[in-house]
């Protein structure tokens, strides 16, 4: 069916391109998330290793570069996914009622995707502002984690790992190739692993903060 607005807005590729932006930005964010996880886990090797890595990133301006990268990719991802979030109250009511009605796990996980995405956005803005303002070193991090920010970081860790895992699952489901059941198993295992790495890292920072 074609009507005026559709005829005027005719760029047949636009839906495909937005879909592509959503996927590519999402994948980049996952790569970032896991790299971030490994870099922060440098604290496992000790305060010296962590500070050396932080210093290296500072020296080559990798920190501001990362912030710019993140802002761009975040904006692209949000811009692309926002079209999928049921916006109107009417639509919201329908999707929640529908998920309850058909009792389908993958439908629920999609609703959580929107909720966790919004929460991650709020938390990540705070996190990036704090880190950009204060800089990175083990002393500051351990102080933050010990003095009140532990719940904040634990929430950010769980939310982002969940969101990344479900997002990756959807990408593979949509494009095919891998069996859904094996996909769930592998991604589940990766999520448990990354959350465990993050939790141990937080634990180390907390104990360092307690010693200080």
């Amino acid at each position, binding site marked *: 069916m074609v009507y005026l607005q559709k005829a005027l807005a005719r760029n*047949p590729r636009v839906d495909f391109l937005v879909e592509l932006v959503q996927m590519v930005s999402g994948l980049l964010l996952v790569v970032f998330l896991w790299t971030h996880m490994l870099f922060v886990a440098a604290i496992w090797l000790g305060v010296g290793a962590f500070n050396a890595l932080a210093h290296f990133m500072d020296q080559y301006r990798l920190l501001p570069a990362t912030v710019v990268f993140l802002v761009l990719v975040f904006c692209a991802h949000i811009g692309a996914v926002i079209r999928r979030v049921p916006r109107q109250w009417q639509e919201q009511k329908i*999707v929640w009622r*529908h998920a309850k*009605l058909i009792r*389908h796990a993958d*439908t629920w996980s999609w609703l959580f995707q929107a909720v966790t995405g919004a929460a991650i956005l709020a938390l990540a803005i705070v996190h990036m502002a704090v880190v950009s303002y204060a800089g990175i070193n083990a002393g500051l991090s351990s102080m933050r984690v010990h003095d009140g920010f532990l719940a904040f970081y634990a929430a950010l860790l769980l939310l982002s790992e969940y969101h990344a895992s479900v997002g990756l699952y959807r990408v593979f*489901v949509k494009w095919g190739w891998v069996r859904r059941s094996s996909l769930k198993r592998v991604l589940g295992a990766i999520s448990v692993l990354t959350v465990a790495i993050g939790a141990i890292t937080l634990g180390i920072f907390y104990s360092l903060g307690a010693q200080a």
Partner: protein
Amino acid sequence: MARELTFRIFRFNPDQPDVKPRLQDYRLTEEPGMTLFVVLNKLREEQDPSLRFDFVCRAAICGSCGMLVNGRPTLACKTLTKDLPAVTTLMPLPVFKLLGDLSVDTGVWFREMSLRTEAWIHTDQVFDPNAEEERMDNAVALQIYEAERCIECGCCIGGCATANIKPEFIGAAGVNRVARFMLDPRDKRSDAEYFEVVGTEEGVFGCVGLMACDDNCPVGIPLRDQLAYVRRKMAAAGWKLRRRAPAARA
């Protein structure tokens, strides 16, 4: 010992909008080999002649009896009561026009989808009634048959969150239909022409991958594979469109 089963059935008559939609309980004794087809007909015959539901073939061929059985979109005729708990809720399929109680009109939706996906062989070859029928490779024929098995029951559409909020979305049934014609060597449509039909938010790129269709197809069509096949094909077509864009615009 035969179980006493309770069926909590959605009641609503659109011709009597003053009477609010409600769930009504019916009770009956389970029998060996009982299906929901038997249950509903027994209830209508013995307890409530006003109960509305659809059945034709009672053998999972006609696709008339799609409904939500404890929330799950499936065919009532294929559902055995021995697989159900003591209390079962029956609701009509969402998305489709509600005719009353469990009865919905899937026909209008599927006709509209067939028109929008142009679900017929596009060819400029003139039909010669005297010529021998063209032969088709068996492997291709089997692939086409896989998609053709769709009985248009609408379970994939009723279960789809996107179809529930976007009436224009053609859903898994629509994409599966397009896949069938893409595979058919007699259909002369180019990928760019298919892109016009399904390369949009109303087509395959509107799918968010919730896979309620794949999980609930009563005849077991691999809908996820069909969706992914069309998506990959349309992505390739969309990618190539770029180079020809200036010419196409002229």
